[in-house]
């Protein structure tokens, strides 16, 4: 009898489930026209993390209650996922590389897929996964052992599984793929294992590699002149990207050169590390690059997700790109040309006098790592790290999760390295006490970086921001608070304590006309809505 009831319940559940819709490229391009869905990592190709949903407002957000929670069975690592929601189905990832489909209305698990992982090499990074991409009726995920896998969106069955790079050499993937018209792009991590940075593009249907960009040169290539006599390494591509379908350009940031903290053996600017690359996704050609931190020695990757927006500068409408860099400067670039438009610090920094007319840092001498430890702001983890910012076309503000923290940067002497063998940390940090550090959600005027308001956090956080047309900004704290601020004033409107550090980018979606907000804390996935 019991068994029958269970079967009946199962049938009722599956009958009530929404059907999986196809997500053609055209739907992704027009994602802003269907705010009920959160169709890709950054919400839209501009990576704005802005939702057009207006049900939740400053007036009613205090009434938010938990709608459901989901807990993975055995999460092996930090939960840092940012879901994709398509027509009532939510695709989340679980550490290290599992994909699970949930009913976005109830949290019920529909299917789950995990790769077979053996002898994973993960050097200088957490074994986690930050999200998937969806295209047509397929879900794409990259794994910690550096595979790109295509799953059937209805069942989780593997359609293809391609090796991106050799995990044994230290290549590992935690970031989300970018799916565009018939193509899926993916980068990797591994700078601390001194791998050679790369960015790959695959045929979305077959998994065949269409092109590869090496982000640092081979010996003899012109850019090798920016590396002294060393073998160029690092410049990995481990975080999310943005895409402009009209310009047909993908914007992807690159990480630090290797070895970190001791740049003696790599004199020069170390192209194309700590840079933003604008890439033609059809040809794989780099149209332009912008290097934020030449000859970097603080581990300030330029891997932060860029945000595309259109704004007025000097009375002229411009296609722009906003970038809050780990080095504590906010940059505005012309996204057609890569030319510097504006920039200023958005958090405390003590390493540069400012930016020159080209956006290059005017570096203060003796602000690199030293053998005794040199106190510099921001810290090794940066004024921001992997989390995403948001941009509201309503307020025209850029909402950044700023980390106010310094480190004593220590220069190590062990600069010998062999690719894939060893963590290549030629130094490190002694971070300041937690009581000498704090965090802040800051609203910047997107076209200039001028701060409009801030909301202080007890400690530097690892939570992205989410902006909504309802006039809210959601974010969270490292201590475990999830909260909503007024997008115009920064006033706190609602908060709830979730009992463990939040480590994800919140998203919002709607099912059956009701708006929900998603975030994770610890290893639990929470969804909130009005009762």
């Amino acid at each position, binding site marked *: 009898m019991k068994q029958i009831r269970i079967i009946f319940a199962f049938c009722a559940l599956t009958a009530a489930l929404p059907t999986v819709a196809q997500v053609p490229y055209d739907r992704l391009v027009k994602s802003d026209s269907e705010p009920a869905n959160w169709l890709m990592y950054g919400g839209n190709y501009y990576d704005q993390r802005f939702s057009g949903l207006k049900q939740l407002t400053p007036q009613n957000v205090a009434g938010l209650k938990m709608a459901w929670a989901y807990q993975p069975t055995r999460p092996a690592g930090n939960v840092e996922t940012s879901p994709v929601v398509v027509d009532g189905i939510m695709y989340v990832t679980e550490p290290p590389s599992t994909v699970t489909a949930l009913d976005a209305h109830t949290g019920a698990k529909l299917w789950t897929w995990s790769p077979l992982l053996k002898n994973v*090499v993960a050097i200088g990074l957490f074994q986690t996964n930050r999200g998937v991409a969806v295209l047509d009726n397929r879900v794409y995920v990259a794994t910690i052992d550096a595979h790109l896998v295509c799953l059937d969106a209805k069942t989780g069955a593997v359609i293809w599984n391609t090796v991106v790079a050799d995990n044994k050499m230290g290549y590992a993937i935690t970031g989300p793929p970018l799916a565009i018209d018939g193509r899926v792009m993916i980068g990797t991590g591994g700078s601390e294992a001194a791998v050679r940075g790369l960015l790959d593009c695959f045929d979305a249907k077959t998994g065949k590699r269409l092109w590869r960009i090496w982000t640092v040169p081979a010996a*003899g290539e012109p850019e090798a002149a920016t590396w002294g006599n060393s073998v160029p390494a690092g410049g990995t591509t481990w975080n999310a990207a943005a895409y402009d379908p009209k310009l047909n350009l993908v914007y992807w940031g690159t990480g630090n050169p290797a070895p970190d903290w001791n740049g003696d053996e790599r004199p020069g600017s170390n192209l194309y590390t700590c840079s933003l690359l604008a890439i033609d996704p059809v040809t794989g050609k780099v149209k332009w690059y912008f290097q934020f931190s030449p000859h970097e020695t603080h581990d300030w990757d330029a891997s932060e997700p860029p945000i595309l927006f259109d704004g007025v500068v000097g009375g002229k409408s411009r296609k722009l790109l906003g970038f809050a860099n780990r080095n504590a400067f906010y940059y505005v670039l012309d996204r057609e040309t890569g030319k510097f438009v504006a920039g200023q610090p958005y958090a405390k920094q003590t390493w540069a006098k400012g930016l020159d007319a080209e956006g290059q840092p005017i570096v203060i001498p003796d602000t690199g790592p030293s053998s005794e430890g040199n106190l510099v702001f921001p810290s090794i983890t940066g004024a921001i790290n992997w989390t995403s910012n948001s941009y509201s076309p309503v307020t025209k503000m850029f909402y950044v999760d700023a980390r106010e923290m310094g480190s004593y940067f220590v220069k190590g002497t062990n600069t010998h390295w062999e690719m894939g063998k060893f963590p290549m940390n030629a130094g490190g940090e002694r*971070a300041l006490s937690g009581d000498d550090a704090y965090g802040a959600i800051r609203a910047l005027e997107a076209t200039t970086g001028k701060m409009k308001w801030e909301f*202080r956090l*007890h*400690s530097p956080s690892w939570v992205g921001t989410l902006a909504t047309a309802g006039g809210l900004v959601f974010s969270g704290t490292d201590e475990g608070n999830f909260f909503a601020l007024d997008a115009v004033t920064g006033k*706190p409107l609602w908060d709830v304590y979730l009992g463990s550090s939040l480590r994800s980018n919140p998203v919002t979606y709607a099912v059956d006309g009701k708006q929900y907000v998603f975030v994770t804390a610890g290893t639990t996935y929470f969804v909130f809505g009005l009762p």
Partner: protein
Amino acid sequence: MKSIGAVSLVATAICMLTAAAQAQIPRDPTPIVAKTSPADIANGKLLFEATCSRCHGLDGGGSDGPSLQGVPDRLGDQAMGDIIRGGIPGTGMNGFGSLNAEETGQVIGYIRTLGRTAEAAVAKGDAARGKSVYASSGCTHCHIINGEGGGVGPELSRVGAMRGPSYLRTTLLTPGAILPKEAGAMERGRWTQFLFVHAVTKDGHSYEGTRVYEDSFTIELKDATGKFHSFRKLELTKLEKLPGRSVMPSFKDTLSLPQLDDLVAYLSSLKGAQAQ
């Protein structure tokens, strides 16, 4: 191009060996013993910086990974070496099978030097007499040793393994002068423990005590009687953090210098609960 290919082949071969060794506790049966000569410790420091500091902090005090200070004392060299070379499955602790037994011993030798304040100093008093001083000075009201005592202040069962005599003496004379940091996370900084806080509510009530918990919206104090008080920060008219102050009294005027030496010797002897 040819030479690059050759280099990468060699690197691949090396890393395949490394990966094989990482899969399990290495088969190398050489016993692991901490190496403690100055040259060993110097090399251990280099290896530690390159291998361990990213997660455990340059001072081994913990960052993404836990604090390693005092761990070799608790686990012993062999168990420590097995973890270093074999990792801890299901955690962020990878195995570093590329380290041989000697290098592993050097790393352990270096870790043994970390986190000990005034390590070279030796307590000069008498621990047995110090135990009586501890019992008669009111310490048990606020501190627990091996399960006995009150819970207002920190538990002291292992304090001799973690803090040197100089630190203990300073704390007895000027409590709050040197506050320890939690073995917290690099990514947000390690908070000061036992921070003294003064809070005033909107209705004018004033509260003092040790910070037990704080986040962006709330703070929790433990007062001198051990009572907890929880506040929403937005509802406070004043919130002062007063490093240097403490709910613990100074023993500067209540203990003689010999008594102080004896008490420091007793506390220094506390290296953890005895196995039953």
